[in-house]
């Protein structure tokens, strides 16, 4: 295929060519960045919580005094146990994708000089670790004697099981077992490490801190009450959540059932990422509309060119060009314009990404997005121009002999 005559012809349509190329360039920039944003959001949504989400539900009640805590705990645990299919009920402060409850900055020394960052504390009574189904990779689970009663926030000296990510952050390369950290006057000693344990609101403090969490065995009572972890077979869990309000209204009529925060953990997860899903939907919509508009623009302009050049096409056909030659001419012309657009689009895409990086804490665009976008746009261009090009190829040679 000869490219020079195509370029020469394009020189007569500089403005239209430039417009299509600019459109492709903008489309390339938006396409790359929108796809990248989608990939980021989907990455966020894939976070591993470290607990058996499908077998767990959270039941939350409020509206009672701390002094009533032990009584409320006893009534509700008994009540929930009465629902068919419930395997275990334990008291916990929150779960991944639940409300953030105990989040605090920790120190690696007693004096509070070496900061360890802000982490989430999960506090749970006996039975919680078994119910959560976390996977221990080092050390041991808390024993019965490790569950200590609280006087306010934490016991003075607690054993704790931390996530692998937190261990790697606090003591990189070292064995975390037996290591200690402090939160104000409270002291914690690591007795076990689990492979994953997401914080209650993963991503709220950045992606690298999404698993900075510690489980602290705690005796339920005045300072640990009102939030219950229910474990059951995944098929029973939705029904148990539905039945819980009625059961609680019977066993503890004075408390307020917290409908917003009582749910299966898988639904809590689903709701937690609602905003990300909405954004992904919007971005997909933009991408689709964008491709459609770009394709229609190419169709419109190519049709115009074909109509404008009917005579020239007829002459070419009359002097021996085959239909294939004409078809290839328009396909190649489109390929050249789209290529020009893509080259400009790469610059635009990187510039747009730079804006996003500085304004919205989006990571840098990986370069492999660029060739993928190029292939997509080349395909789009070729498909869009196909119909007008076929119409051009169908122009009979006899047109050359007619005027207008």
């Amino acid at each position: 295929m000869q490219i020079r005559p195509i370029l020469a012809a394009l020189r007569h349509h500089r403005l239209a060519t430039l417009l299509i190329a600019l459109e492709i360039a903008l489309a390339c920039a938006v396409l790359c960045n929108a796809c990248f944003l989608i990939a980021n959001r989907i990455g966020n949504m894939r976070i591993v919580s470290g607990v058996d989400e499908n077998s767990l539900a959270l039941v939350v009640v409020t509206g009672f005094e701390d002094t009533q805590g032990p009584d409320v705990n006893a009534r509700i645990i008994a009540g929930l146990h009465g629902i068919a299919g419930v395997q275990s009920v334990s008291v916990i402060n929150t779960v991944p994708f639940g409300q953030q409850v105990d989040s605090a900055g920790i120190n690696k020394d007693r004096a509070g000089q070496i900061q360890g960052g802000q982490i989430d504390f999960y506090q749970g009574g006996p039975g919680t670790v078994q119910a959560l189904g976390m996977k221990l990779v080092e050390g041991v689970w808390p024993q019965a004697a490790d569950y200590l009663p609280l006087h306010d926030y934490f016991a003075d000296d607690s054993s704790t099981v931390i996530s692998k990510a937190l261990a790697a952050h606090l003591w990189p390369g070292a064995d975390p077992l037996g290591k200690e950290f402090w939160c104000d006057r409270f002291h914690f000693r690591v007795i076990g490490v689990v492979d994953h344990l997401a914080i209650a609101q993963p991503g709220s403090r950045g992606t690298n801190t999404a698993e900075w969490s510690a489980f602290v065995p705690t005796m339920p009572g005045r300072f640990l009450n009102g939030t219950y972890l229910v474990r059951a077979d995944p098929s029973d869990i939705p029904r148990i959540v539905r039945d819980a309000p009625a059961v609680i209204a019977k066993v503890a009529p004075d408390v307020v059932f917290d409908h917003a925060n009582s749910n299966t953990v898988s639904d809590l997860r689903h709701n937690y990422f609602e905003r990300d899903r909405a954004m992904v939907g919007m971005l997909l919509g933009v991408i689709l509309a964008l491709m459609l508009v770009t394709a229609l623009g190419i169709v419109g302009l190519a049709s115009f060119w074909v109509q404008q050049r009917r005579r020239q096409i007829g002459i070419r056909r009359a002097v021996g060009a085959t239909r294939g030659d004409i078809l290839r001419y328009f396909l190649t012309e489109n390929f050249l314009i789209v290529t020009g657009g893509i080259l400009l689009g790469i610059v635009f895409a990187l510039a747009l990404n730079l804006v996003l990086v500085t304004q919205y804490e989006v990571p840098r665009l990986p370069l492999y997005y660029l060739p993928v976008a190029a292939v997509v746009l080349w395909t789009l261009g070729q498909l869009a121009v196909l119909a007008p090009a076929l119409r051009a190829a169908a122009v009979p040679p006899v047109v050359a002999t007619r005027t207008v």
Partner: protein
Amino acid sequence: MFGYYIDLAMRSLKHNKMLTALMVLAIAVGIGASMTTLTVMHLLSGDPMPGKSATLFYPQVDTDPTNESNHAQPPDVMDYRSAMDLWSSRRADRQALIVDSQLKVRAPGVDLPPLMETMLSTTADFFPMFDVPFQYGGGWSAEDDARHARVAVISADLNDKLFAGQNSVGRTLRLRDSDVRIIGVLKPWRPSPLFYAVAGGRFSGGDTSSFYGKPEDVMAPFFSGLEINDGHFYQFNCWGIPTTPGHLEAAPCNWVQLWVQLGDAGKVASYRRFVDDYAAQQKALGRFTHADNTRMRGLMQWLDFNGVVPSDVRLQTWLAFAFLAICLFNTVGLLLAKFLRRSGEIGVRRALGATRGAVFAQCLVEAGLIGVLGGVGGWLLTMIGLWVVRRQPAAYADMAHLDLTMLLTTFLLALVVSLIAGALPALRASRIPPALQLKTL
């Protein structure tokens, strides 16, 4: 002449329905996307107190004496003592303390299960200062604040829920274990954002949609609120662990917000000085270590500092306008094709005496007509877009409606976009030499 051009434009648009439809569609989709996001932006970035925001200020002092934070900015809210000192000196025209807490609410004699509601504990000036509208009754007085009166103001929502919208002034509400008398019921009131409670935006990672929630359903005098719900107050942040959880009056914690109203520039300057002097005095007393670190932002500055518009919404607006730009280029290309296809016709008009300006005007009228049609389509798509936004789980979703300003903006934007798109092709069309075109006929 304009009428004639409209007639010509109609004929021309009817001549090639496919191409016309493509152009109208491109403009409609671009306008629909950008107006949907622009309406949401308009809703979220507007002035919640138009006409009054310039007199409202948010003083801040650096209450944290430790070196755990970098002290680049003072904390977003104050500890009890600082807030109380500034408030009780009464140096501003009006001043209001603000603190939120959760508590159990029941209405004796109403057969409904107890509710958990957010209670706003504030001082008497809150209502006149923020022009809070009342349906029944009114707010409380400074004397009620001083004698810890057991009174409350409730929202229209809660009044509907508990008392079926009847005038409930004089009725009793049980807040936790205390009975209070309802003295006022608000009209539906929905400032966007809930500006007086905004704080901590810089720590939210751009997820600020919670700033657009509804106002509290229960409002009680500040000190009464602290007594009624003692033990259930949450800190914004602490530089030491409070000795009694939920009881923060003496705790090393920030949890109280203070708003002041200052009528003129002189008062603003003197209040600024007052805050600075207070911080210096507290440093002398050994309570503060960073006395210079004070701020007093105006309402709009405070909202801006907190980045109240969620980053997702700003991102969507960027995307929508990039998309509109693509639609614009698309329309330029198609209009160019359309006008140049009529080169012969235009050549004849020119030969018969039409000036370049006349041809240019004719082409622009045609482009404008496409813009108006695209505007109608864009308006419909905006309505659909906003309907989708209202179904989102965001706190501001219920407020996403097209007001008159944005409706007019829709058509104006469509017209402007189409005229911009039409300018270049029209210029090219007006440059068509008559002779060359006549020769080919």
